[in-house]
């Protein structure tokens, strides 16, 4: 467990675009997936003999399948607007981490095999043969993109590097060169039901422990139900919420919200994962398998609503793709958004006055909010544009007296990735993760210095794990990252049983249903 040797970037007073350092991150590459992990997902176990041919065929297939991909490949005019927008470029100085350069790793192969000019005059149009060297470059630099889409916000054509990076990863998986972290996790989620590999008895044991803890702390029996048929809501949340800190404090917050609002809910041991790493590797088939587990669980449990917990890319998959991946959801209550985000639930209840909140309980904190990339730029909440920015902030302001935003270039649609998104949250990429966190760390430090911010809230399991890992590199402490629903959990005033009709009602409702 040796510490990787690298220097943590220095935090500057204001963002500085670094001087280029060519190939300085060429050594950064995640562990490759072994045969067993690859084959489980339907990919070859190792690099196949005719990999060039298969890769080019796959690229052709993807061009037909995703019109957007071909448009992105054709439309770049090399204007340079994206060059200083990627957190990995800002943190590493490697020019291949400029979004346009990353795209060009793919585009130059596309031009060589799919455009007339590239076929006839490759050198004139920057077209190149697909060689082993190129494949190695792909493996390294397409695993230095967290698919956060920040560059696409500033691109005048809206070119989305995330999609190109997903396509590249899919091509690599198809020829047998997959990434261990993502593919191991997808395999576990498909067999056990979650990324952790947490089996049902362990899930039940963990949740029973939480019930005890919350009762000890509040005197109120707040339930954490699993597989309860007839519950109104199926909660799909990242399995990190059962396992890690500060995630689990968010889970306690969701439970308290449901409890106080008298909404019967359940988790599913079959679909005990919100995260969908199929998206990170660009694999529609694997993404669909995970989405279908959620559908199955909703049918089996007879729920009326599906609510997603705090998970960034899960919400992208849920909000943008769930209906086409696993729909139609005509068996759910059509009066609610399908699916719904836990923040939408909590926000709605706050607006209706159904939650008793005491924000002074969070008076020991000055809070800021980190917009998670997939929520900010790839989805929405509520029924107004920008709801994904306003709803979480309105919740925080309702439960917390001291709230400050980070500088405007670093929030909302311009938010910086935490540095660990897109399937890069693995220890073998720790140098990249630390360096990629730089722009967020600078923005955070500015509000810590200026306004005395003590904590940063987030609504994504990856963000939370990433920050608790990289904060110490930048002299923050790991517990300064918190779950948004942890703030809700602190502020919510639960009435002990006997004083009101809370609690026992929930159970009878479920049993009756």
């Amino acid at each position, binding site marked *: 467990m040796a510490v990787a040797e690298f220097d943590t970037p220095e935090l500057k007073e204001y963002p500085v675009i670094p001087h280029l350092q060519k190939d300085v991150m060429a050594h950064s590459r995640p562990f490759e997936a072994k045969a067993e992990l690859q084959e489980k997902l339907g990919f070859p176990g190792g690099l196949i003999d005719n990999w060039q041919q298969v890769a080019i065929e796959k690229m052709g297939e993807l061009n037909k399948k995703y019109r957007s991909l071909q448009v992105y490949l054709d439309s770049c005019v090399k204007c340079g607007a994206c060059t200083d927008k990627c957190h990995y470029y800002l943190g590493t100085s490697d020019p291949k981490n400029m979004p346009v350069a990353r795209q060009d790793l793919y585009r130059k192969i596309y031009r060589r095999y799919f455009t007339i000019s590239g076929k006839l005059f490759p050198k004139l149009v920057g077209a190149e043969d697909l060689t082993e060297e190129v494949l190695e470059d792909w493996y390294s630099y397409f695993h230095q993109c967290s698919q956060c889409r920040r560059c696409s916000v500033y691109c005048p054509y809206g070119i989305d590097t995330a999609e190109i990076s997903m396509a590249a990863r899919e091509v690599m998986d198809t020829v047998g060169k997959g990434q261990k972290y993502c593919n191991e996790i997808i395999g576990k989620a498909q067999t056990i039901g979650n990324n*952790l590999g947490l089996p049902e008895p362990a899930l039940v044991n963990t949740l029973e*422990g939480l019930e005890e*803890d919350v009762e000890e702390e509040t005197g109120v029996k707040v339930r954490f139900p699993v597989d309860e048929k007839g519950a109104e809501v199926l909660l799909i949340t990242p399995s990190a919420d059962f*396992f*890690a800190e500060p995630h*689990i404090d968010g889970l306690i917050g969701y439970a308290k919200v449901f409890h106080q609002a008298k909404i019967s809910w359940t988790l599913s041991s079959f679909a005990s994962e919100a995260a969908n790493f199929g998206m990170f590797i660009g694999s529609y088939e694997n993404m669909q398998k995970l989405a279908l587990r959620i559908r199955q669980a909703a049918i089996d449990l007879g729920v009326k609503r599906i609510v997603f917990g705090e998970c960034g890319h899960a919400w992208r998959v849920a909000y943008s793709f769930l209906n086409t991946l696993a729909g139609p959801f005509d068996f759910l209550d059509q009066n609610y958004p399908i699916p719904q985000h836990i923040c939408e639930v909590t926000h709605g209840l706050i607006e209706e006055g159904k939650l008793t909140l005491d924000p002074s309980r969070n008076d020991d904190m000055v809070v800021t909010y980190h917009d998670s990339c997939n929520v900010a730029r790839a989805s929405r909440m509520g029924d107004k544009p920008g709801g994904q920015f306003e709803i979480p902030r309105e919740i925080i302001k309702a439960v917390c007296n001291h709230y400050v935003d980070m500088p405007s270039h670093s929030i909302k649609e311009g938010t910086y990735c935490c540095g660990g998104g897109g399937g890069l949250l693995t*220890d073998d990429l720790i140098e990249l993760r630390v360096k990629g966190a730089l722009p967020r760390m600078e923005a955070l430090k500015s509000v810590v210095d200026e306004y005395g911010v003590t904590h940063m809230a987030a609504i994504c399991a990856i963000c939370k794990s990433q920050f608790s890992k990289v904060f110490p590199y930048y002299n923050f402490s790991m517990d300064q990252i918190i779950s948004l629903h942890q703030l809700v959990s602190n502020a919510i005033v639960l009435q002990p049983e006997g004083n009101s009709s809370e609690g026992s009602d929930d159970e009878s409702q479920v049993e009756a249903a």
Partner: protein
Amino acid sequence: MSLEVSGKSYETDEEGYLAELSQWKPELAEAMASADGAELGEFHWEVINFLREYYEEYQIAPAVRVLTKAIGKKLGKDKGNSKYLYELFPYGPAKQACKYAGLPKPTGCV
């Protein structure tokens, strides 16, 4: 990769996690720790033993909260928190302690 202990070789993954759970013995934990420049004391062993017991029953490492609660019961409330566990295992109780205990590395967004 492999780990050499008293003349025997034990297969591990790229990060040094033991490939075969059943091959584990206390000497391997000692060897892994000394490779990290650490020495295992009584409290480390409490954690390692609890992890192994929990894994035996549930086929997964315990959630951080389950672990801190159990350690708090065994070693006193002042030690039942993740700050203390991070003092014992600076690379994180879930990952470093699991490695010494011969368990697979927890995966996912953790």
